[in-house]
């Protein structure tokens, strides 16, 4: 079969990224310009600031991605772009830039769901086999996605309130850690013990949904109460207790899902997939599922990047999923809930 070459765009939150992906699994270039330092001034992503940074960065990223890959426009088979979910003002920069490049060079435009991108990040390491299950965990999302085949994504469970990564950032603030807090809380958790036994919300319920706002409140109440009576709590133990609750719920629901939907592979993707506590726990839990291979998206591809969008885009290209020049950003784009 002829090689496929995709130029891909990702601007759904606070990373401007453009990549060149060959055959859906080889990264020829993956330029990522991150705005973290800017948003750290405000303790979290400010949408209007994010959008302003994207437009500063976008053409430089396209230029770098092309130069680094050594490819030029006639080589490409399609232009893939994240059109949702995400921040509308951020998505619009990538969508408009991608539409412009596609029109200028007469290339098909491929609309990609950001979550599909996080899942297909795994394909950059090893070919995904179906049926597959994906646990996508990030600052904006926590969902279990069942994939009977490569272009069929069905949500079987999702968060009812905060995303797991969002909860990390919020309790991080209480611990004096700036956004994004996940990595540091993970490190502290490894130095502490689960002594607070925070609630595992919805853990025993007969569904695959998550909830993290109760855990966040329990955490904050515990710290405030200690402040009021002038005792200080061990921060590592707080981090360990919080992380234990998050990891318990995520892995318990995933195991429950694997029992009901036997799959060849379980994919862990999204920013929080870089969490070592979660990775270790799933490795351990998966020993009970010898038929299911654990696919951990490599840590450097867990955060938002265009390489994963190109990987998903290559699959959509095979299925002739195209958009026309009227493609708009869809900030609340979602897969269908399983019926």
């Amino acid at each position: 079969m002829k090689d496929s070459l995709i130029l891909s765009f990702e601007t759904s939150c606070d990373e401007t990224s453009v990549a060149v992906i060959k055959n859906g699994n080889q990264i020829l270039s993956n330029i990522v310009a991150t705005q973290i330092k800017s948003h750290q001034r405000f303790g979290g992503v400010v949408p209007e600031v994010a959008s302003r940074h994207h437009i500063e960065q976008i053409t430089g990223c396209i230029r770098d991605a092309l130069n680094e890959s050594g490819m030029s426009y006639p080589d490409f088979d399609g232009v893939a772009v994240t059109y949702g979910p995400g921040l509308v003002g951020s998505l619009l920069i990538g969508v408009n830039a991608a539409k412009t490049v596609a029109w200028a060079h007469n290339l098909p435009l491929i609309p990609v769901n950001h979550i599909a991108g996080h899942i297909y990040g795994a394909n950059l390491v090893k070919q995904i086999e179906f049926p597959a299950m994906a646990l996508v965990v990030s600052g904006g999302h926590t969902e279990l996605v069942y994939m009977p085949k490569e272009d069929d994504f069905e949500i079987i469970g999702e968060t009812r309130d905060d995303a797991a990564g969002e909860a990390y950032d919020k309790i991080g603030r209480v611990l004096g850690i700036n956004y994004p807090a996940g990595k540091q809380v993970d490190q502290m958790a490894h130095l502490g013990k689960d002594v607070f036994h925070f609630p595992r919300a919805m853990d025993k319920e007969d569904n695959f949904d998550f909830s993290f706002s109760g855990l966040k409140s329990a955490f904050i109440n515990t710290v405030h109460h200690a402040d009021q009576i002038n005792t200080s709590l061990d921060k590592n133990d707080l981090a360990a207790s919080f992380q234990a609750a998050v990891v318990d719920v995520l892995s318990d629901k995933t195991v429950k899902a694997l029992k009901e939907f036997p799959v060849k592979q379980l994919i862990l993707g999204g920013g929080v997939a870089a969490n070592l506590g979660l990775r270790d726990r799933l490795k351990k839990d998966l020993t009970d599922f010898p038929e299911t291979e654990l696919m951990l998206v490599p840590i450097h591809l867990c955060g938002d990047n265009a390489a994963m969008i190109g990987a998903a885009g290559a699959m959509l290209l095979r299925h002739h999923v195209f958009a026309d020049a009227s493609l708009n950003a869809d900030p609340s784009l979602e897969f269908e809930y399983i019926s």
Partner: protein
Amino acid sequence: MKVLSLDTSNQPLSVAILDDNRLLATTTITTHKKHAEFLMPIIEDLMKKSKLKPQDLDRVVVAIGPGSYTGIRIATTVAKTLAMTLNIELVTVSSLLNLALNFKDSQLLINPIFDGRNENMFTGLYKFHNGQPENVIPDQHTDLSEWLNQLKATNEKIIILGEIDSFAQKMKEKLGQHIILADPLKSIPSASELGIYGLHQKPVKDVDSVVPRYLRLTKAEADWRKLHPKEDTSNYVEKL
């Protein structure tokens, strides 16, 4: 020279294609603010009707702001990406000046206005000399009473145009006979005027660094700068 010009700064969307001073095709829509959806299909359609391919273009001219933040970002993203990807020239023009160009043959002072809500406005004052604009009072984000004080000092007749509905009454009260309301048709920006004006302007040197002219910091940044007046604000984005 084949020129594509575009303005999506506010509610109106206007696109034109010119061959030097000759207009080949143009579309202006004022009923929708769906610029993200409409802009590229309209460009495609007008180019087809002009019998041009993207590679035939020599220059893009864009109204760069001020205006609605989303609006100016859509036109600017398309314009700078097109200039970069086709390796053609990019000219940026103030969105207020583009509106003022509707009166480029007038001798009077021209005051384009975009409504910034709550008595605030994006505005500037222009005067044309043989069709060439002079920015008499620089484009700015200001409030009505402050702007009226600046206008009063000119003591001349002024044509106001653009989003003037919530300002016209008060401006007439304060400046009386000096204020002339533009014909509503001339309150709509024209990409044709923009393209013709842009023909004779210098292209930008560095397309990658082009950003919309917001004329206003985000609230988060304004508050932050008050607390950190000395901080270097240039290096917030890092390539991984």
